[in-house]
Structures are given as C-alpha cells and as structure tokens.
C-alpha cells in the first residue's frame, strides 16, 4: 500500500514539476546542436542517423517557441530529404559500377575521353547505392541538427550573447535586423510612388528605379543612425595601457598563426607523431585565440541588459550535447563496424549500445529544459 502511494506521489510530483517558462541560454541550444552534428558526422549507420534526425525533431517539437523565426525547421527537414534524394540520383546517374548485386539496369551513355570517360546510367549496383543513401543521410543529419538550433535559439538572443570582442559586428547585425522591415516597407512605398511620376511599377526599369531611392534613403539613414549612436555613447572604450593592447593583439595574431601552422603540419605528413604535433599546435592556437578574445572583450565598457544566465538546465543541455558527440566519436573508435555500416557486402545496420545511449541522452533536453515563454523575443 505504501509503495503504491509513494509511487503515485512521485509521479504526481514529476508531473507537477514545470520549470518556469524562460529562455534557455542560446549557446546551450547551439552547443547541443553542434554536439549532435559532430555525432552525425562520425557515423554512417543509417539507423543512428535517422535516430539523430528524430531526436532533433523531437526536441524542436517540444521546445520551439511561437515565433516566426522558429518555423524554419520544416524547411531543413525538406532540405534533408532533398539531399538524400539528390545524392541517390547522382549515384544512379554517375555511379561507378563497383559491387556485385545489380538493382536496375539503365541505358548507358559514355561521355568522351576529356570528361574522363564518365558513364551516365548503366547498371546500378546495390552496394554503392546503399553507400550513397548512408552518405546522404549523414549530410542530412548534420544539416538537420544545426537547423534545429536555428529554431530553438532566438536570433536576437544569439546576438546578445556574442563575445564582447566582436560587439561591433553584433551591433551591425542588430541594426540590420531592425532596419530590414523598414527597408521592405520603403521598397513597396517607393515602388507604388513610381506611379506618381507616370512610370511603370513593374519591369526591369521599375527594379532599378526603385532600388536607387531605397539605397539612397538607406544610406542617409545610416548616417543619422551613426550620429544617434555616437550621441548615446556607442564606442566608449576602457583606458588600457599600451602593454595591455600589445598583449591582446599579439595573442590574437598568435592564435591565427598557430592554427595555420598546425594545419600545415596536419596536411603534409604521415606519421602519428607529426599528427599529434599538428593537432597540438592547432589546439594551442585555439586556446590563444580564446584568451585574446577574452582580453579584447575587456576593452569595451558596455554591459548587457537582462543577460542570459547559465542555469542548471542550460549546463545540462550543454553536457548532453557534449556527451553525445564524445560517445559517438568513441564508439567510432571501438566499434567501427557498428558505426560505419558496411556495404560490401551489404549488412544490416546494428545498434551499438554506446551510441544508442548517447541518442537517448541527446533527447533528454526535450524534457528537462523549461518551456520558452509566450512573448517571443
């Protein structure tokens, strides 16, 4: 009796646990999505890939807000399907006839020698066809994963989370998104006003005739905007010593130079040692760049109004995404046949346990994260 009531009260508690509606930190969603994308690129197992797409769809369905920008996910699903179809079609048309099991025989057309004697059509073999499906699915899964973040994290909030070092660039994107609807309004108004000069409203002349006044007024407005921004204190910088600025600048450059050098090593060498060297130098470059960005961020004295904070749910989402990526990468090392489904000979795809767990973990943010609030900003 007591176990039943305890169970009932637990379920009741679980059901009544509604984390208050708030926005998740946009970087939490993006890191989750990138983790999912990295996971997708580590495997060609169709079941796992479809699982990734399903997980992304689940999370988006449960946590996307009622905002116009959140409706783009269906577009990404369509693109994903399109990519698979195109990849398969390309394989059917241009595929190399390796493998043993024929699927269909199309009339063949051999292109001339300067086109490397590529053969269009011909016998379509099963193995490469399967491989193309897996390849297409992989690209599709990467795209869907990244597209999911686009529907979960508000663009406005992403701009607010831009690192302080590139604040100016963030502001210009904010200005662009503020200005865009005005621009569209300008275009329709100016196009309608062409009638007043007896000029046609449609046609090529209308296009250029509309574009120019719009561009002029846009440029004039940018100067008004710049004056207003200046008057409101835009561009105040902290007093920094020359040494400090030198440090930041050097760290910035060092970051880029190290990455370039590391890549150079990675490109040209075969031995494991050099590979580690190369990776190490690239990593060093990334660290240096991160440090320099943090330092450069200190030059601006601006603060953020109502910034997004990292709460437990945000960190947990980040952790889920990271776990998924690491688990898949690990699984690709320890269980290559499970992660990269073989096609020659064609085998049924398996479900490696580690990867499956990772998928489940990746789906968790659909449940423990808070619902987005009703006002979609």
């Amino acid at each position, binding site marked *: 009796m007591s176990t039943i009531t305890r169970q009932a009260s637990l379920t009741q508690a679980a059901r009544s646990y509604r984390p208050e509606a708030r926005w998740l930190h946009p970087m939490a969603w993006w890191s989750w999505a990138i983790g999912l994308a990295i996971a997708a690129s580590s495997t060609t197992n169709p079941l796992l890939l479809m699982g990734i797409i399903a997980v992304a769809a689940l999370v988006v369905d449960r946590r996307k807000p009622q905002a116009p920008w959140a409706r783009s996910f269906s577009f990404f699903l369509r693109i994903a399907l399109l990519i698979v179809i195109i990849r398969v079609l390309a394989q059917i048309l241009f595929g190399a006839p390796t493998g043993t099991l024929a699927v269909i025989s199309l009339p063949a057309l051999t292109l001339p020698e300067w086109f490397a004697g590529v053969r269009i059509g011909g016998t379509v073999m099963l193995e490469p066809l399967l491989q193309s499906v897996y390849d297409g699915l992989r690209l599709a899964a990467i795209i869907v994963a990244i597209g999911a973040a686009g529907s979960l994290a508000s663009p*406005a909030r992403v701009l607010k989370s831009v690192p302080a070092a590139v604040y100016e660039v963030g*502001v210009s994107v*904010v*200005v662009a*998104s*503020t200005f865009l*609807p*005005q621009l569209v*309004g300008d275009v329709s*108004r*100016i196009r*309608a*006003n062409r*009638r*007043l*000069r*007896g*000029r*046609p409203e449609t046609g090529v002349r209308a296009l250029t*005739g509309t574009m*120019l*006044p719009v561009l*002029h*007024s846009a440029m*004039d*407005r940018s100067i*008004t*905007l*710049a*004056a*207003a*921004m*200046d*008057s*409101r*204190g*835009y*561009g*105040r910088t902290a007093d920094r010593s020359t040494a400090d600025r030198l440090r930041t600048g050097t760290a910035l450059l060092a970051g880029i130079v190290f990455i370039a050098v590391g890549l150079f090593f990675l490109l040209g060498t075969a031995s494991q040692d050099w590979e580690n060297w190369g990776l190490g130098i690239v990593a060093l470059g990334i660290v240096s760049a991160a440090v320099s960005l943090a330092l450069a961020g200190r030059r601006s*004295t*601006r*603060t*953020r*109004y*109502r*910034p997004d904070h990292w709460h437990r749910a945000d960190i947990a989402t980040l952790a889920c995404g990271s776990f998924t990526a690491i688990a898949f990468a690990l699984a690709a090392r320890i269980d290559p046949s499970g992660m990269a489904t073989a096609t020659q000979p064609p085998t049924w795809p398996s479900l490696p346990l580690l990867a499956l767990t990772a998928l489940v973990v990746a789906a968790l943010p659909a449940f423990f994260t808070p619902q987005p609030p009703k*006002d979609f*900003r």
Partner: protein
Amino acid sequence: MIEFDDVSIRYEPDGSDILTGIDMFISEGEFVLVVGSTGSGKSTLLSSINGLVPHFTGGVLRGEVRVDGRSTREHRPRDLADIVGVVPQDPLASFVTDTVEEELAYTMECLGLAPTVMRRRVEETLDLLGLEELRNRPLRTLSGGQRQRAAIGAVLTAHPKILVLDEPTSALDPGAAEEVLAALHRLVHDLGITVVMAEHRLERVVQYADRVIELSGSGRAIAIGEPTTIMATAHIAPPVVHLGRVAGWHPTPITIRDARRHADALRTLLTGQVPPLRAVPDPNSPPIANLDSLRVQHGTVTALRDVNLRVDQGDIVALMGRNGAGKSTLLHTLVGGLTPTRGSVDVTGSDPRQLAGPELLARVGLVPQEPADLLEAATVAAECAASDKDAGCDSGTTRAIVALLAPDVTDSTHPRDLSEGQRLLVALAIILAARPRLICLDEPTRGLDYPTKARLATILTDLAEAGHAIVLATHDVELAAEVAHRVVILADGEVVADGPTSQVVTSSPMFAPQVSKVLSPQPWLTVGQVQRALANLGGTA
C-alpha cells in the same frame, strides 16, 4: 550648464562660417527654444552642444563649447553621453533595436551601467513617459507620438542633465504634439532637466519656453532673451505674435491667453466687418473629383468607410484628422494607387486606376509625404529633364517651374542635398509639369519654416485661381486656415465634418487657428484677414 564662448563653426576649412561669434550661457533647468529659418544654423547649433560638430561631421570649431564644465574640444559625443541626450528629428531612423524596452536599455548598455540599475531605470522611464503597455511592442508599430516619447525615453535612461531635441513635433498631429510637449514640460519642472529645442511650429511651443534663441542672417546674428522680448521683433513668429504686432499690442502676447486680454478692443473695432468670402465654385460644372460611398481596406483594417467627397475646379480642400485617420489613403485612392473595395472614384470623368503615364499626370498629381521618394536622378537638372519626358511636355518646362517656385535651387545640386522645403517645391514642380487638373499634397508642411510655408500658401492660392483643384492633407491648422476653402475632417476612416473652412475649424479647439481662438466668436481665421480689415477701416476712416 551650457556655455558657448565666442563660437564660430564652419564645415569646410576654407569655406564660410555657418555660425559666427556665438556667445551664450544656458543655465540649469531652462527650457530654451531655438528659432530660425531653414539654413540659419539651428541644427549646427544643437549638434555642437554635444560635440557632434565637429567630431562627427568634421569641420573647424573656433572658440569653445562647455557643457557642465566639460569642453567639447576634449570630449567627444560619446564622452558626453551621460550628460547630454540628443533626440533626433526622425526617431525611427535612429533606433538601434527592435522593441521599446531594449531601446531604453541600449544607452545604458553603452554607458556600462550595472544590470540592476538598468532594470530600475527602464521601469522608471516607462512610467515617466507613459509607455508601460508598449514595452514589448516593436518600435515601428508605434504611432508618431509614442515613437517620439520612446526616443526621449531612450536618451532619458542615462539620466542626462540636458536634452537636445531637433524638431520633435514636426511630424505629429496636434494631439500627439501635446503629449510630447507635456512630457518635456514635466521633465523640466519635475526633474530639472535643461531642454534645448529647435522647432518650426512655434505656435505649439513658444508658451513653454523660458528663453528663446533666434538665429538669423545665416547664423551671423543671434538674439537671446525672454520670449516676449524676442518675439516682439522676431522675423519668425507664431500667428498670435503677428496679430499682436498688427493690432499694436504691448507687450507682445505670445500665448492665446495673453492675447485674449488685449482682444476686446480689437473685436470692438472689427465689429461689422467680415472676412472676404471665398469664391464658391459653380455647382453645375462637373466636379474635378468625386468619391462616392468609398470603402478601402488594407488587409483586415478598414482604412476608409463610406466616404463621400466632391472637389470642384478652383477648390482647395484641406483634409484634417489624427495620424492614421485615413488621409493618406484617401489621397492615394484619388491617384489610383489603391483599389476601393466598394464605391467609386471619379477624377475628371475617369477612374484613376485605369490611367497611367502622361495620361494620369495630366489629370491628377500627388506630392507624397516623403517628397524624396519621387526624386531619382543625380542632379536637379537631370530630374527636370526626366520629368519633362515623363509628362510628355517641352523640355525646360519643369526647370522653369522650379525656377518660379524655388529660385534658390541650383542645377547641379543632388536632389537629396536640398533642404526640406526645396525638396518639396521641386517635387511639386515635377507634378505641375503636366498641368494636372487635380493636385494632391500629403503633409506638405513637415519640416517647413514659416517663410517657406507662406510661399507654399501663395503658390497654392495662385494655382487654385488658375483653375486647378487642390486637395491637401495636413494637420497644420494655420495653413488650412490660410488657403483652404473647405475642410474635411476624417476620423477612423469616416468623414465627420465637411464644410467651409470658417465653419469647420472654429467648431473644435483642436482644429482652430490661433487667430480664431483669440478673436472668437468673430469669424477671423488669419492675420492677413485682420490686417486687410484694419486697412479697410483705416482707408475709410
């Protein structure tokens, strides 16, 4: 608080001075009004207070401008952002973010205030300016008055000591202008903020001002003093001041209330006189434009509801009403830019929707709210040539009309470099090239100073006498009183009043010109009418 020490400004190092030898001191908590005709240097003066001139615009500053002890020589505009708040003329063009709340916070973000402080100040400012329900609204969906208040709020959150405003009420209807001015008044009196404001429509503002700065002679002369003193001799003055001068009242009244104290004697003097009647058009001749039970919809919103309007030859009709009442929609329907859902539009016997090209231009022309929309070419001369081609008339016609309307416009200027008034007159000239029977103007007086407005009034009266019909959408009651034969008031898409000017404008205080308010119940509308009546008296006496 603001100190100008023998300041001279010019933009080109070897050009001429825009402002010369300005010496003045504005103390804390003053409401200062800057008046002057276009080109007199008002904007330069205002921009030099926070250092936009010369740090932003380039140029040479001789002398020194000190704001709360800080000199603009060492301090750039961003360094003065915590004590000077600048509200530009076109707030929509200067909004950085999308919503009201974020815009209010933006200034504080730039100044580096702590998030808790920012939160508190945003709430305070929303309350102070009456914007609480609008906090999450996108800025472009706000009305003109709300937008202006949001712009003021955006700079107010920095708790500046000085507010500089460049023509804040020029685009607003009288109601919205009242809201904004009342808010400013509250800021000055409750918070002790110094307000420096440039404005063309003096009739709305001059009663609030503690001191008036008058710039004249292309920035060479400056007069600073009490409103009554300056207005006694100012070139630019509201109608009530001109009335005072004509009637010989001392001290020159600047508010309606002051004027009414003197008005008794004038009223007695003018008893028995009536303003001259405007010619009534022949009701039998066919109307130039006729709207019958017109209904126009924009998506789900009904912009015009059951509107009937008849415009005859030689008529000048003023369309008045709040922003958003449907005035622009009506004008665009007259030109054939919008399709009515119900009812008919008839312009010189045809449906304007069927007309296009020179055919359309010869019958009806519209100068839109933004005259620059019509201007595409790189020089005024090229614009005129294109206009001649569009209208199908002899080359040189448009240029001749431009020379007539705005003689100071040169051929090689870029049309967008012209002043507001010049742009309007060039656009009007382009419309007039084809000699349309019906001429429409949408808010022509935005940003125009008194001399240009008077010029426009003369031009419109001449055009009406020549036989054109004119429909004019405006909320400038003075212009309507000056030129219009009839006034039509629109509210929420419906016509609520349609009759001779003298009847309609005097029926409501919102639309009554200053002279009418002073001399009511007598039917005088403009200073010109009173002046002519007095001259008649003087002639016969």
